[in-house]
């Protein structure tokens, strides 16, 4: 595929619909890649022989998609996922950049672990892996992690994801400190007192099944806390995996006043309601839990009106033996990288017609790039040639047994979806194609 002996390697992606929200571009045309960067047509005018041609007729040519919420499990849990396998899953899903959460073993709360992750990613991952670091030491919510040091080591955001800092004063200091070092704070919004040992949405199904309820208010209370602290500290807090209607109402109101608050959505929170747990399927156990149709409608409304700006997977691989236990004891989370683009295109663009494919691409590229201040998610001349080709109308069936991820914990096996990635290109190199 590559032409290493030529002074210049060139690729032309022909005749695709180029959608590049960062440059307000939506047109049929050719995209030129030279030496791994997006280039102008003129760059290849005198080079006819060594040009790789990619036909993108009927396909969308988008900036490489970003998933800013994944768990790659290394170091510590290589039986669930490795950085290499997670990156393959990302490429298969159409993602060229992923942000990995710090709840590894050891926790990514120190420069050496961050450096280890970056080295591992450089050596084994075929997509860009950007680490997020911890807010608190060992994710315990008691003392601040060395935030400035881990930012210097290369983390692009801080979060205790999976956990939530309960002490508002500690959270306030973390946000103030993050402002100084210029990274956003991402928060998994969960009030431990309200949620207790909740494992499923508190409501009709928790009542019927006798499972401990996780009330929506347990999320909403922390979203409200984050709004107040974002205002107090004048710094950005991003609320992860929003699941409850009330959270969206709060974020909408705050954004209307210019508060630096944002929210993200995972596909399972718009694809399934809590009725999915009625047979105690642990692949429907995630945190926050699946909620009601009312919540789904509110999330979709929030996506449509721009309240919720980012789409992500919360890719959370677990081994089969870990999930195949009593519901109470099963770990939270599902894999998502290889199904999320299909689910979101199918639900948001085709079925609910909540947003255009252009906006969907923007929510996967420009929006996270802007939030995280990373130089990806654009097809600007000179940018790294991270590109996703998307067939928005391709009908396909989810087959968990063929996942690149080491884990299979998905409730979407057998689902028929419309829309998926066709090719994933990182730095000018095709890392996956259909």
């Amino acid at each position: 595929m590559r032409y290493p002996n030529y002074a210049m390697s060139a690729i032309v992606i022909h005749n695709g619909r180029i959608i590049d929200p960062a440059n307000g571009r939506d047109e049929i045309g050719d995209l030129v890649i030279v030496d791994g960067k997006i280039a102008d047509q003129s760059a290849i005018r005198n080079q006819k022989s060594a040009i790789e041609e990619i036909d993108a007729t009927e396909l969308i040519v988008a900036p490489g998609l970003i998933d800013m919420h994944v768990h790659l499990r290394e170091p510590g849990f290589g039986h669930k996922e490795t950085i290499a396998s997670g990156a393959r899953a990302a490429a298969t899903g159409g993602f060229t950049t992923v942000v990995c959460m710090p709840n590894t073993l050891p926790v990514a709360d120190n420069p050496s672990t961050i450096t280890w992750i970056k080295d591992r990613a450089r050596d084994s991952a075929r997509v860009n892996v950007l680490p997020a670091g911890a807010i608190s030491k060992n994710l315990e919510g008691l003392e601040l992690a060395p935030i400035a040091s881990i930012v210097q080591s290369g983390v692009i955001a801080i979060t205790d994801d999976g956990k939530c800092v309960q002490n508002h004063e500690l959270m306030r200091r973390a946000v103030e400190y993050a402002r100084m070092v210029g990274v956003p704070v991402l928060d998994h919004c969960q009030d431990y007192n309200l949620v207790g040992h909740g494992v499923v949405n508190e409501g009709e199904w928790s009542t019927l099944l006798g499972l401990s309820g996780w009330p929506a208010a347990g999320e909403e209370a922390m979203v409200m806390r984050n709004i107040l602290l974002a205002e107090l500290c004048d710094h950005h807090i991003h609320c992860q995996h929003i699941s409850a209607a009330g959270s969206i109402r709060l974020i909408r109101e705050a954004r209307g006043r210019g508060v630096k608050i944002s929210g993200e959505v995972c596909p399972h929170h718009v694809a399934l309601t809590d009725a999915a747990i009625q047979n105690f399927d642990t692949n429907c156990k995630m945190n926050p839990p699946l909620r009601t149709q009312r919540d789904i409608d509110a999330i979709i409304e929030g996506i449509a009106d721009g309240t919720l700006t980012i789409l992500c997977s919360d890719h959370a691989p677990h081994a089969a033996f870990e999930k195949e236990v009593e519901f109470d004891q099963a770990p939270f989370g599902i894999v998502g990288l290889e199904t999320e683009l299909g689910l979101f295109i199918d639900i948001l663009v085709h079925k609910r017609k909540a947003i255009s494919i252009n906006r969907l691409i923007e929510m996967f590229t420009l929006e996270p790039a802007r939030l995280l201040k990373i130089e990806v998610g654009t097809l600007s001349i000179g940018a790294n040639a991270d590109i996703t080709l998307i067939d928005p109308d391709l009908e396909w069936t989810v087959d968990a047994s063929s996942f690149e991820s080491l884990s299979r914990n998905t409730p979407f096996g057998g689902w028929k979806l419309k829309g998926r990635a066709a090719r994933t290109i990182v730095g000018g190199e095709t890392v996956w194609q259909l």
Partner: protein
Amino acid sequence: MTTRWNRKDLLGLRELSVDEINLVLDTADAFKQVGTREIKKVPALRGKTLVNFFVEPSTRTRTSFELAAFRLSADVINISAATSSLSKGETLKDTAKILEANHVDIIVLRHNSAGAPQFLAERLRSSVINAGDGAHEHPTQGLLDTYTIREKKKRIEGLHVAIIGDILFSRVARSNIFALTKLGARVTLVGPSTLVPRDFEKLGVTISYDIDKVLPTADVVNLLRIQHERQRKEYFPGVGEYIRLFGLTKERAKLLKPDCLIMHPGPINRGVEIDSELADGNQSVILDQVTNGLAVRMAVLYLCGGIAA
């Protein structure tokens, strides 16, 4: 009786039809006779092996299942969490697979996690009988309560049954609600608002926080224990206030119709949910429940054991 039993497992009463519930109750009628004979044993499950697998401790339910199995001539072993390899870190699935590899026909499972019996039933050829899973269901308790009401009142339809106490954490309440509403009883749940969440109304029952208004029209009161061991949070201010608001005291019992049945699934906290003398009084059918429990469990083992051939 044209209804046939097609279930290898009994996981809950929510999924049973009216005919299936009646079939169990009618079958229990026949087995109840057996208990009054001099020779209390029938050969129905001779050659079958039953395991009482009690991950969560229980005396009364385990004993009842054990006796029921003996009277059906099954071979019985008992396993508790402490004596099983679960305490060594083995998963529930592996423990159960090992039981199955030993050709166990019926597994009676008591577990503190809702859904654990269904989890096993989906993975094993053996019959799985739910002997109580977390706060989910306790189907044989629901059946024996229903049986006892039917025996004493000769009907279920049109009766007013009050279930009083800790509903939220009660698998007994859920199984009773499913059986009684299917059979046409009117069910009222009574207890502190924190333990009787309004979501229960979606199950077709009425909720009341005023016991004195409910007692005069009740044909049956079923009192549930406050399950301290399940409660991880503060649900009410204390036992004293609970008794004041919801305890079935002698004074309150005067509001009951003279033929109202007083039931309790046990274990009883005397002087808390029920006055000690009332528990032993002439309206109490608490010991009938125990006796009927044996007959109902024989019926369930007989029906499911016959399917899992």
